[in-house]
């Protein structure tokens, strides 16, 4: 017969200081893990909302990101009339030639300056990006040195607020609007007109990439293989979604470091949990003897103390979730493959929290197993005699 769970619960309540301290130790360990998982997940969410499967992006062959790609205007003229490209409101193909560069701006976190992506694009480029809408101000005038900035650029870089003037390469630009990309990567960009931006950067002929809107998934595939197989062009094309998914790899080192830290801390915490449970066993020697006299088997004792260790660590896991909860939604940034700042939010999901609790329970069971074994091996008479 099993010892009732309420016995363990009451014991944890009686020794509340020890219980709380041990649980808090476990909670901090799990909180580190949860924070890292939320960070990586936030980055994934941002990248996956940035790319549209019906957008095709073309880069110079061999280039893995827009910033290292070189794209000439003549290549764009050849591409614009490829089959499968949707037509825009004006009847012209929805195709945008774009130039990407990065500029160094002082941010809130980093007064020394961080790289921010600047994108020069054609009017079609705005039309085809359905996920981006104007949040404040107005769009830039293509014949002026005007830009709009992403929401998180406006929030994190004091020099890039609405109404300010910003220096890109050689001239001062007016910030006339703020765009909202619903947490996509475009929130971390500054947009201006292609011709204005490329001339300011002195890159009028050789720009960076081209983006096309296609009508459906089948045409997207056809257009991609059409571009990839056209040897004359020397370009690689992929769907914009795949392009951004590929960039998730930039989170890999962070994820690895985070996991290592969490595992090392978990080893430390399970030793601490072991300590607490050994003390519990030592203090309750007489109780254990009594339980045995009452007829509970060695196995029931083992199970009971093991369960107590698990309960203790589960409490730690729940505390960890509460500790990390305020982090949810906080914006931070990471270096993207475009060599620039990519802002994203910590994104905590129920699934991540469950992982955290499971992790806590795992380290608690490792820590609880040996003390529970000691408890179950005690002889009745010696246990009863112990002070």
């Amino acid at each position: 017969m099993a010892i009732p769970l309420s016995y363990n619960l009451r014991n944890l309540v009686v020794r509340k200081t020890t219980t709380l301290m041990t649980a808090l130790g476990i909670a901090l360990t799990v909180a580190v893990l949860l924070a890292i998982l939320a960070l990586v997940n936030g980055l994934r969410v941002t990248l996956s909302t940035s790319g549209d499967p019906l957008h095709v992006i073309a880069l110079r062959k061999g280039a893995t990101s827009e910033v290292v790609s070189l794209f000439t205007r003549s290549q764009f003229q050849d591409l614009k009339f490829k089959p499968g490209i949707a037509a825009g409101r004006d009847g012209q193909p929805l195709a945008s030639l774009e130039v990407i560069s990065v500029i160094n701006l002082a941010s809130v976190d980093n007064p020394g300056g961080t790289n921010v992506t600047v994108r020069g694009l054609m009017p079609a480029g705005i039309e085809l990006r359905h996920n981006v809408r104007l949040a404040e101000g107005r769009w830039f005038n293509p014949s002026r040195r005007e830009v709009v900035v992403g929401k998180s650029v406006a929030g994190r870089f004091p020099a890039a607020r609405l109404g300010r003037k910003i220096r890109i390469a050689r001239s001062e630009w007016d910030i006339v609007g703020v765009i909202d990309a619903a947490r996509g990567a475009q929130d971390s960009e500054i947009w201006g007109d292609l011709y204005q931006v490329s001339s300011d950067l002195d890159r009028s002929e050789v720009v960076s990439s081209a983006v096309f809107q296609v009508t459906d998934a089948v045409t997207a595939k056809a257009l991609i293989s059409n571009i990839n197989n056209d040897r004359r062009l020397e370009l690689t094309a992929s769907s914009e979604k795949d392009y951004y998914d590929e960039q998730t790899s930039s989170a890999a080192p962070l994820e690895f470091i985070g996991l290592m830290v969490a595992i090392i801390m978990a080893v430390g915490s399970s030793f601490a949990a072991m300590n607490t449970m050994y003390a519990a066993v030592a203090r309750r020697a007489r109780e254990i003897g009594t339980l045995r006299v009452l007829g509970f088997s060695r196995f029931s004792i083992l199970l009971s103390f093991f369960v107590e260790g698990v309960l203790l660590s589960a409490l730690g896991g729940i505390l960890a979730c509460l500790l990390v909860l305020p982090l949810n939604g906080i914006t931070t940034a990471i270096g993207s493959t475009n060599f620039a700042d990519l802002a994203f939010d910590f994104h905590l999901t129920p699934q991540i929290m469950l992982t955290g609790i499971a992790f806590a329970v795992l380290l608690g069971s490792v820590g609880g197993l040996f003390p529970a074994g000691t408890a179950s091996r005690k002889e009745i008479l010696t246990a009863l005699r112990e002070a």
Partner: protein
Amino acid sequence: MRYLSLILKNSWRNRRRTILTIASIGVSMCLLGVLVAMYHAFYLSSPTPAQALRLVTRNRVSLTVAIPASYQSRIKRVPGVREAMIANWFGGTYKDARDPKNQFSRFTVEPEKLFTVYGEFHIPEDQKQAFIHDRTGCVIGRDLADSFGFKLGDRITLTGDIYPGNYEFTVRGIFDSPPPNGVMYINKEYVEQSLPEARRGEVGMYYILVDDSRNSAQIAEAIDAQFRNSPAETKTESEQAFIIGFLSLIGNVKMFLVAIAGAVTFTILLVSANTMAMSVRERVREVGVLKTLGFTPGIILVLILGEACTISTAGGIVGYLISTLLMQAVSKSPIGGFAPTQSFFEPVVALACMGIAASVGLLSSLVPALGAARAPIVAALRSND
């Protein structure tokens, strides 16, 4: 000091608990040791004498915007500048780019100037000459050679992105450097020809060698002043500052390190506090006996605080020793490449770790120790917990 042996005896009384506590603190401290060492290496260490002689000039807008090749002669005319070498980030991919091992740094440089600017690189004279005279040649750091097993005469094939096309480079030299180095240097003349006409003659950065490191700040200022209000303004900074600038690209590394270190320290504090609370609780009666024998509350306080410090410092020493081993692994990893120098023993780091360990011990036992010191004799003696 008289009570040292009593403190030691007390700490060793419940062996299992002491060992578990030391192990728990040790594991956490080894993590903390790595974090402190990394923080120190990134933000607090001073450059090596050779590195202190180098400056890097780039476009003020950002590293991806080029500056003209014509700046080279103007930079060299700035007083105090001994040499200015053009260097460009080659980028490209080697085999499967998804394997981080394949993502070693590749720069195109002027071969005849490389070993002047990097005076600390050691390379046999014949290999150096072979590199200068072979347009498709490259030299690689000892670390890179070791990790891939590259030998002299081997060919390394790279697929370019900034420089489009496929390239084959012949290993003409392998150099040794004080912090082991895994960089590949390529002859700039050769790859430049693949660029579109409009982008030839563009320079990513200039590596500058100055004659006296004490003047480097003024020299950097003088270089930037030369190009102020010109189409391409420059930003010149020390090589160390330039490298640390890359760290900010990975993310907010400083905050990351501090946040984790804070969480780890707090965990250690909890572990240690818990242990001490348990030990003191079990010994209330003993404290009563000690007091009857004439031990003053002050001595009781010292005894308990001393015990906590002994245990946490022991954990700190164990942890620090493991962390020095771990740091060797970290410095070989890609992120370690950012850190300027990492010696096996860094006194500041060791002191910081011991300091944290000891103060955690003190802090964690303060509450139970004060409680025990203040407990009235009769109540303590009566306790049978």
